[in-house]
């Protein structure tokens, strides 16, 4: 009995010692209120159509996804020549263009992010990076810590805040119908995302790790911040950078597909053109895009396993 009492007293004591964060509780309350409002707030969620009409639409729609030769003959063997024709007509070129746009864009983002990470990093922009005294504390070091670092990080936040589809939509009207608006839209958005993901890798260099020791040694022997970053942190974090790079490439391929809906010959354009009239073709192009993503998924899983 005494043991049980002391145990429950100890449990109560531990409960009292738990970390409590009003910030987290308020955040949870806001999220709960947001979800309740989304479902119970004003307006019907179901739209104007009756349930019966929706069901008929759904049946008609699923029927129209079946390839047209199969609908006529009832033989699924006719689907293969039909799919081959779509692939060789425009599908394959659109697929290659989609992948090329995504690849060029993500490489452009990577080239832009890599050199500026040392300026954006809290670790490198402070007066004493990694705790190493870096010489005279003049207005230059203060400017780097207070203006350049936060400015670069806010640049990352800003560039990832705008959805890529919106950037592409706006740029297309300014630069005309060509590939740059799509590439730039993806590159600008991913500049912010890679800046955050790679930035976390740099910031999270652990105390006592090999990377940190190398950086401290380099700084102690008089090497500059950028040289230290380029010769210690980047090479040692290279594999982690690659993991995030491949993940963003995969996302870029998916995004490049839909950006084509704005008018350039990628899978998105073929999807947009087929919509409403040739649902079977549209569905084929959707599955084509999906198969590239699945292949990319397998590739990035393979690369990650090799790099581990």
């Amino acid at each position, binding site marked *: 009995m005494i043991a049980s009492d002391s145990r429950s007293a100890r449990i109560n004591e531990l409960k009292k010692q738990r970390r409590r964060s009003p*910030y*987290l509780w308020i955040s949870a309350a806001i*999220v709960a209120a947001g*979800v309740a*409002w*989304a*479902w119970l707030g004003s*307006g*019907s*969620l*179901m*739209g*104007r*159509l009756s349930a019966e009409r*929706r069901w008929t*639409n*759904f049946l008609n*729609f*699923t029927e129209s996804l079946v390839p047209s030769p199969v609908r006529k003959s009832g033989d699924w063997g006719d689907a293969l020549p039909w799919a081959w024709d779509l692939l060789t007509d425009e599908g394959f070129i659109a697929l*290659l263009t989609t992948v*090329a746009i995504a*690849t*060029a864009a993500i*490489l452009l983002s*990577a080239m832009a992010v890599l050199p500026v990470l040392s300026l954006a990093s809290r670790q490198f922009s402070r007066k004493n990076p990694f705790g190493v005294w870096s010489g005279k504390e003049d207005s230059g070091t203060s400017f780097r810590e207070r203006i350049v670092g936060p400015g670069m990080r806010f640049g990352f*936040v*800003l560039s990832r*805040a*705008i*959805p890529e589809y*919106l950037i592409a*939509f*706006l740029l297309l*009207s*300014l*630069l*005309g119908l*060509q*590939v*740059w608006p799509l590439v*730039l839209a993806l590159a600008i958005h991913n500049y912010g995302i890679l800046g955050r*993901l790679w930035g976390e890798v740099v910031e999270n260099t652990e105390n006592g790790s090999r990377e940190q020791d190398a950086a401290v040694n380099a700084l102690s022997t008089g090497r500059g911040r950028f040289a230290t970053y380029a*010769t210690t942190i980047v090479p040692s974090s290279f594999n982690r950078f690659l*993991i*995030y790079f491949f*993940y963003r490439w*995969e*996302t870029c391929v*998916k*995004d490049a*597909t*839909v950006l084509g809906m704005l008018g350039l010959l990628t899978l998105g354009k073929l999807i947009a053109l087929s*919509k*409403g009239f040739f649902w079977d073709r*549209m569905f084929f192009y959707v599955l084509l895009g*999906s*198969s590239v*993503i*699945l292949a990319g*998924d397998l590739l990035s899983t393979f690369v990650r396993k090799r790099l581990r």
Partner: protein
Amino acid sequence: MNVRAAWNGKHRRVILAFAATFLLCAWYVDLKPAGLLPPDATHWERTGRFFAAALHPAFDYEDPNTPVDAIPIWVKAFHGLFLTLKFAFGAMSLAVPAALVMGFLGSSAWWPTPCPRPLKAVLGAVYFVSRFVMSLVRSIHELIWALLILSAMGVSPLAGMIALALPFSGTLGKVFSELIDEEARAAGLALKAIGHRPLQTFLVGIFPAALPNLITYSFYRFECALRSSAVLGFVGIETIGLYIQLSHEEAYYREVWTYLYPLLGMIILVDFWGAGIRRRLNQVEGGCTG
């Protein structure tokens, strides 16, 4: 140690391969530096007007035929913003429970050890099917899901929420299963040693340990859902994206900025809110998969 010594042969080969790939892609899609500038006087004029409008967002509608009793433009902007938030909240409330179920089925952390061979075959099949479903739903972009679902169900807020929720549940489920599988199993092993069943071990040992990472990742996806929700406006669902599209098509650029600024502000605010949550949960983010 100089740069040459710090970078090994593998690094250099990867960088060279990337450089060659970039040049090849740029050549294939005809990416010339001249394309970075507007092509003619009309586009230059349009570009100038668009960026000049950024300094003078509209406080009233630019369309002279706007009815007198129309709601003020800033009220419309905030209405669009609230609708954007509403879709994001609704979609995430569908995606997170679905992802928890799929993430659980797609992880092996709760399997009994040792696992009898027939049971292992069944669990392996469940694991494979749930992983495949997660990959399939996330391999299709939310905008294309929206096109498909709106065509099948008609335009309705629920259709928009489902369109966002489907790919998000796949992405969240995949990351959930990886986070659960990668979670240190020390607590789980200790609980098993004192006689807990595999499922109990998972529920009181492994899952609570993985929970902070699951929460931070879900919040990151909420930020993504907000952006995607805005874009749903381009397929006809009423979010702030629809207002931006309509104003832009009429070349009312000042109105475009009136809608863009609050959208940007909201997304940046949520970004900082998420950073605060991450910091307080004291976890290093496990990356994000979109």
